[in-house]
């Protein structure tokens, strides 16, 4: 075959694949939104699910997902940022640092179901927390920490060397240099990464099946005392999240409108994840503009 013809054929094939991937995403999003959006209403978003009757909503699940997200991030961010700072600033290059890096890499590639099983064994059974939001948040922390560490490490090593050296030359301690000179510069990147990580938490289900549980007790949305067992804010109650709910009604849903509920819930989940994605991009650009002279 003529080299020019081969070049043309290959170019067409590569173009076709690129177009196919774009169409795939459009088709996926289109399918989820078209099927789901007609089912979304205020009532659907706020009412409790029904087990055998039609017309159930996803109110508690949506609340659980958001609350779990906040709990997880409250635990993940301080630990992840601390560990990331250690990796980028304090760890001396050498065998020890390399093995720590390997540990982080291994942890990030653990299957989420294994992390869920670990959570069930340690948090639910050994620490005796039971199937609860707190167990779920701890399991998700384990699942999310490596990502947080990598984000922080990359953001911190992206800070210009001169900034760090100038600060050290002025006699500031290393920790002071990190917290008041380097961290503000790295912050936009860290925040963007954190929002993306949050989107991942929001959609995670496998790690939650055996930690946060698959049931949601009746919630009393007028009771805001975190210690009461019916309060939505109680972190020690079992909580089914939106993603787990989608899985459950697809595999064992008894309600006659299970397919519609799954479609509606999927649409809500995808819209939220999209919001996280676009939010992270927009916020990252905004902070970048605000903190630097570029436009």
């Amino acid at each position, binding site marked *: 075959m003529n*080299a020019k013809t081969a070049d043309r054929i290959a170019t067409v094939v590569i173009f076709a694949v690129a177009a196919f991937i774009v169409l795939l995403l459009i088709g996926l999003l289109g399918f989820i939104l078209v099927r789901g959006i007609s089912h979304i209403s205020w009532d659907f978003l706020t009412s409790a699910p029904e087990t055998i009757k039609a017309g159930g909503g996803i109110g508690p699940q949506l609340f659980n997902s958001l609350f779990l997200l906040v709990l997880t991030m409250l635990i993940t961010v301080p630990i992840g940022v601390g560990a990331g700072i250690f990796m980028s600033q304090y760890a001396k290059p050498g065998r020890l640092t390399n093995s720590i890096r390997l540990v982080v890499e291994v942890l990030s590639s653990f*299957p989420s179901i294994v992390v869920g*099983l*670990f959570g069930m064994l340690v948090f639910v059974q050994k620490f005796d927390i039971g199937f609860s939001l707190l167990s779920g948040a701890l399991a998700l922390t384990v699942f999310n920490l490596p990502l947080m560490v990598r984000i922080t490490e990359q953001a911190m090593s992206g800070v210009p060397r001169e900034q760090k050296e100038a600060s050290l030359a002025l006699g500031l301690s290393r920790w002071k240099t990190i917290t008041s000179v380097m961290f503000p510069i790295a912050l936009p990147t860290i925040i963007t990464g954190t929002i993306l990580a949050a989107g991942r938490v929001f959609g995670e289900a496998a790690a939650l099946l055996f930690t946060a549980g698959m049931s949601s007790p009746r919630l009393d949305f007028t009771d805001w005392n975190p210690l009461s067992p019916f309060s939505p804010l109680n972190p020690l109650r079992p909580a089914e999240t939106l993603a787990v709910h989608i*899985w459950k009604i697809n595999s064992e849903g008894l309600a006659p409108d299970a397919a519609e509920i799954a479609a509606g819930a999927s649409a809500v989940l*995808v819209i939220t994840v999209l919001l996280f994605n676009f939010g992270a991009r927009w916020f990252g650009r905004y902070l970048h503009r605000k903190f630097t002279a570029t436009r």
Partner: protein
Amino acid sequence: MEQPAVKGQKVAFVKPHVREEWIGRIYTTLCILFLIVTIVAIVYFVASKGLSTFFKNGVNIGDLLTGLKWNPEGEPPLFGALPFIFGSFSTSLLAALIAAPLGCCAAIFMTQIMPGVGRKYLQPVIELLAGIPSVVYGFVGLSVIVPMLRAIFPGQGIGIMAGSLVLAVMILPTITTIATDALAALPSGLKEGSFALGATRWQTIYRIVIPTTLPALLTGVVLGMSRAFGEALAVQMVIGNAPHIPRSLFESTSTLTSAITLSMGNTITGSAHNNALWSLALILLTMTFIFVFIVRVLERRNHR
């Protein structure tokens, strides 16, 4: 003026900036220690639970790895996990085979053919694909791919093929992102040299660009496979969950993850069935280590 300075040095460890330095150092060290303790704990607990099948329940490790029958509640109980192992390997391999060419083509498009359009449109598309939760992929697979396969091929539509197609879309972003980074990092001199010799773009791509970046491209594929291997819910929803080795790609079967997902909640802690499920988790964990090892080897070759 000399005296106070010397005195100050003597009590240097309480100087505020020294103290804050120590606080920072201790805090970050504790964070990283937490991470290390966690991973050691995961390995320890999964291994001790998973190995108790062999030590406490007296199951032969060879029987578990090669046995064809899985009936832990039967009389006598049978713990043959080969169907699950086969299911996991076949779905993730097939998914990688489908996704690898697509991902590499997308990466070539983004770096070699139309970088502007690629960065502006294809990049966000890939990122969004990566962000869609796995249960949503499972739901779409169940309501689109399974009926489609049922209409075209004999059988119920569920099975290895449906699982692989869903997984292929899920791991496409992993493969594409790593391939794109590798191709973008290629020194432009190599390509320009090839063009200067009169090679066409395609000749340059498959004689120069792909061979030079092959270890990195393979890294992406292995990472994608590793993700496919550990994915639980999306696969469980479309694979059918019958515990035997299927005779075709369109017949119900199981994977390690789907078996764990389905049965873990229904077994009693400490029972032989429960421990056997932990053994499956241990196999998953071991495979993760093997995948990470392969990636490391490939990366080392890449740096050379």
